[in-house]
């Protein structure tokens, strides 16, 4: 019998009060407990970044974090990025630059890209590569991903 533990945290600006089994991961809680399927499950062991979310303003792999460790914290998932019906500028840039193919890695990739730009609005292309090195994409070859992030940073304008 699993031990159930009470948990309160903020998810995409809304309070959540729930009981979770002690061994549940944050990724399980989001996808199966709260039916938010945006955050993806791929490797389950920190190797791919598909499960990336923001916790207290920092990106983490939700497959490596225990749900009970969310007590009192603030979480943002890809579902929380959209502004009303409009896409977040980072999401829009990925669409505009053809940076999305199958899309499976994208929720994690976009959360991480957005975090990098918040940390450093003047990000260079080299820093983008370093910052996205924990996000694996099997489709795009990354070039268009970098183009999309560069567009948000305004790198292209600065160069022209």
């Amino acid at each position, binding site marked *: 019998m699993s031990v159930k533990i009470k948990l309160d945290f903020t998810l995409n600006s809304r309070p959540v009060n729930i009981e979770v089994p002690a061994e549940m991961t944050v990724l399980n809680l989001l996808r199966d407990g709260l039916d938010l399927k945006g955050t993806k499950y791929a490797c389950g062991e920190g190797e791919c970044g598909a499960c990336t979310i923001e916790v207290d303003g920092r990106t983490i792999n939700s497959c490596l974090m225990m749900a009970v*460790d969310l007590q009192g914290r603030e979480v943002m998932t890809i579902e929380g990025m959209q502004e009303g019906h409009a896409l977040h500028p980072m999401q829009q840039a990925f669409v505009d630059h053809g940076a999305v193919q199958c899309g499976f890695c994208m929720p994690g990739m976009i959360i991480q890209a957005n975090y990098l730009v918040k940390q450093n609005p003047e990000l260079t292309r080299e820093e983008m590569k370093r910052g996205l090195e924990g996000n694996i994409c099997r489709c795009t070859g990354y070039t268009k991903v970098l183009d999309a992030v560069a567009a948000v940073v305004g790198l292209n304008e600065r160069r022209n």
Partner: protein
Amino acid sequence: MTAPKKDFDFARPKTIEQLYNLVQECQHEGRQFIFSAGGTDIMPNLKSEILSPDIVISLTGLRALNNIEKQGDHIIIGALTSLSELCSNNNIQKYLPALARAAHKVASPQIRNRATIGGNIMVENRCSYINQSPINRESHSPCFKIGGDVCHLVKSAKRGDDILCQARFVSDTAPLLLLQNSTVNIIGPAGSKEIKLADLYLNDGIESKSLMHGEIITHIKVEITENSLSHYEKLTIRNALDFPSLGVAALRRGNGDISVALTGLNTRPGVFHAKLENHETSDDMIVDICRKANDFTVTYQQDFFPRGYRKNMISVFIRRAINKILEGAKS
């Protein structure tokens, strides 16, 4: 694997006192407990059933252990400081830039946001037979490290051997911390103590750390070495996400002596020194260190790289790290 298969309980004490009440309770009731800090090392091990505790005790509630402070000629790093905080900290960048470099080479940005320095120096030793999914491991019998009766890497190993398990030591930050004469502060049910970081490490891949069950590291005290230069080099296939196939930290002291520390090449880290003679770093000094490092190394085939290649790379990486600090000394 989506979640650990075995059920366990979880607790996050907020004070050291609460922690030790809980530890004593567990010991009294015979419940198996493990500590978790960032959890980035234990989580894969819980999922693949290498670890199967009754309760996970999270240390993240001990907020006071998350700080970096300069005290005279030492930097005190709280064990729960995340590797990203470490990398961006002003004192670390100023006094221990090679430590920031080594920490930055761990895993990925997301993992560094959660992984702690305490967890990094305590990271479990690894072996290509054990760090696999349960499905993969089903194809061979359990080895010594998980309570079995065989070692798949060293077939001749048997209980009673000096070293039963050859699982590799893989921490990226430990080598530089060792060169900086670091000590660790430990609290346990029996009180607190300070030991040399070097004394934390033991020879066996199973009992690889000297902490007693129930003890935790609260701080790491790192010596600032006047007029020194240091560097860290790491061999991996990819630039990110890979544990070190080998790692070399090098330090040149103000008096010209050179020290080198290694990770990934044995069940524990290795540290070697060469004294400056005739006021000039000679090739003999470097050759001497490379020879000692090669003698220390135990390369079984437990890495992506063939063992011969990894063995050849030891001297290459030692020279690379030392040359980097010598260039720095000239400029």
